């Protein structure tokens, strides 16, 4: 499936015909089947689908954490497949930021130190690292919580620290795995808005794997996966949701399940 082309300068990453197979030949399970996808700067892309549909595997491939069994991946139009582990580490450090469902903050480090870790991995050191870390926390409304340990933070605060950690290195792409799943509705909405703000204001690509249809309103595109393949892609979601809200329609469920304007069925697209 090929979407309408955007200016190439906005292309942050591209997956071409990616397949991932787990297990040995006899008991092989194909988690992702021939997925092609472009990720653009400044957009929020949601990967949705039922459990086992290949969302997380696709996120891992995009995050250079798992090697695809077949297909190619490009970052800034440069091939990533075949790179050595050390080069992939460098790439993750320089170009990618991660946000996890369970925050994955290091409990032995204070909030600002968790953020500073990302800068240290990029090779930065000195007092400026602490300054930058505190500033990004302040930007995310956590100025007073910078010296707290993760155990002293609420779920929403932890996730905002995790987002600060993902953003502080100024990556091209932020990959978030179920970032709102462990949060209450209010905190989840706040985190979702924050991720959208990062994408739209800072021009970063934000790719979110989620089951949470409540956050579909922040998405520019929603990719629905099923059995490891793209079932459909819903475009211009945010714009449509905004217009729906303005017209007084609040039921998002129908749209998140597909079928509304802007949703392209993969079979239709493939078959022309």
């Amino acid at each position, binding site marked *: 499936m090929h979407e309408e082309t955007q200016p190439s300068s906005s292309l942050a990453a591209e997956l071409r015909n990616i397949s991932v197979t787990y297990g040995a030949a006899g008991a092989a399970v194909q988690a992702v089947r021939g997925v092609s996808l472009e990720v653009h700067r400044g957009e929020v892309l949601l990967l949705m689908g039922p459990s086992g549909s290949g969302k*997380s595997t696709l*996120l*891992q491939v995009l*995050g250079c*954490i*798992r090697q695809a069994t077949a297909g190619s991946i490009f970052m800034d139009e440069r091939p990533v497949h075949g790179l050595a582990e*050390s080069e992939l*580490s*460098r*790439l*993750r*450090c*320089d170009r*990618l930021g*991660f946000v*996890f*469902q369970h925050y*994955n903050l*290091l*409990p*032995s*480090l*204070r909030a600002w*130190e968790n953020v*500073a*870790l*990302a800068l*240290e*991995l*990029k090779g930065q*050191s*000195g*007092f400026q*690292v*602490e*300054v*930058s870390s*505190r*500033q*990004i926390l*302040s*930007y*995310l*409304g956590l*100025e007073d919580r910078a*010296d707290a340990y993760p155990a002293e933070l609420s779920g929403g605060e932890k996730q905002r620290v995790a987002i600060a*950690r993902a953003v502080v290195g100024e990556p091209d792409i932020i990959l978030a*795995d179920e970032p709102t799943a462990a949060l209450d509705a209010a905190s989840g909405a*706040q985190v979702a808005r*924050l991720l959208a*703000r990062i994408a739209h*204001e*800072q021009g970063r690509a934000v790719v979110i794997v989620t089951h949470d249809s409540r956050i579909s309103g922040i998405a520019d595109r929603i990719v629905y996966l099923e059995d490891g393949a793209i079932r459909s892609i819903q475009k211009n979601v945010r714009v449509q949701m905004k217009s729906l809200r303005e017209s007084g329609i609040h039921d998002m469920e129908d749209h998140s399940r597909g079928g509304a304007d802007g949703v392209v069925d993969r079979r239709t697209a493939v078959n022309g």
Partner: protein
Amino acid sequence: MSDPSQSIEAMDSRPRKNRSGWQSSVAFRLAWRNITRDRIRLIIAVIGVAFAVLLMTVQLGLLIGFAVTSSSLVDRAQADIWIVPRGAKDVDQAGNMFERQKYRALGVSGVDSVQSLIVRFTDWKRPDGGTESVIVVGIDPVRPALQPWNFVEGSVDNLRIADGVVIDELYSRKLGVSKVGETVEIMGRRARVVGITSQIRTFTQSPYVFSNLKNARAWTRLPDERTTYLLVRALPGANLSNLRNALQAAVPASDVWTAREFSWRTRFYWLVTTGMGASLLIAAVLGVIVGLVIVSQTLYSATMERLQEYATIRAMGATNRYLQAIVLRQSLVSGTLGYVVGTATAILIAWLSRESSATLMLSYPLIVILGVVTLTMCVGASLISIRKVLRVDTASVFR
């Protein structure tokens, strides 16, 4: 949340107070807190390392102490070359030889002087009637090539007094005398304490009793024409190796060693031939193994608990080297703390045992070497944990 319109770049110039200070890297803080937050685990690791360090230090301190003690007569003597009875393995237990070889030795070019020295076991009868084995060291008190050292009371000149002996205060209780002027019997003949020294230990635990050559012969029943050793002083600038060879040719019935050679020969005999050195070394190695196992085990369990954290750091782009450094620092923190505690305890034990007959000899080189051994041990102990961390499945962060 603060004003979203405020850009990050715009905030960079805002002055900030360094609240916690940036004195160490995040990796170091992480390693430090990982190892210090679980106090029980830290205490176990530190005690393990401290015990290992203590065991190594004490055993090696004893080994060095025994080595130095066993050859102290050779090392203290003002002699360049020793002429010894054929086959003599150590300074305390040699046979005897004709003293007239002295004149052949004096005829060798490069020899300045030659003096007799008698070193022989004999029996010491205490004032309370008990008997102790002692080693009588007979010297020439007029021109002594070897003389008692660390005098607490008296001097070497007192050995000119008939029946005079110099003993060490470490063995005063064993010998049953503690003051100058007290009398005892040696091999049924009268002896009088004329001097007391400090810290002259003996490896065999039979105390050295210094006297003049005449008394020594009488108390050990050594014929007048015989001696135990001949101590040779070389003329300044003489080549000791060549002189030793020349002396060996002059006195073929005896063995000739440089002082350094005879010192090592004595140490080798007591520490290697008797197996004593091996037993001390085995105990020291045991200390290394104990430390290795304890540090390795505590570090491994700490690492396993935090495997998900390492996976996160790896996912964020950490290199193998960065991850290794975190584990290694934890190991080195335990090692350093254990080393400090263990070394301090060993120094305390050495201080407490300074008045005992067993020498626990600690030196700066030994302490430094054991520091290196300890840290190397900790590096070794961290290998299993490092291997585990480097093999962590990064994708596990998404589960």
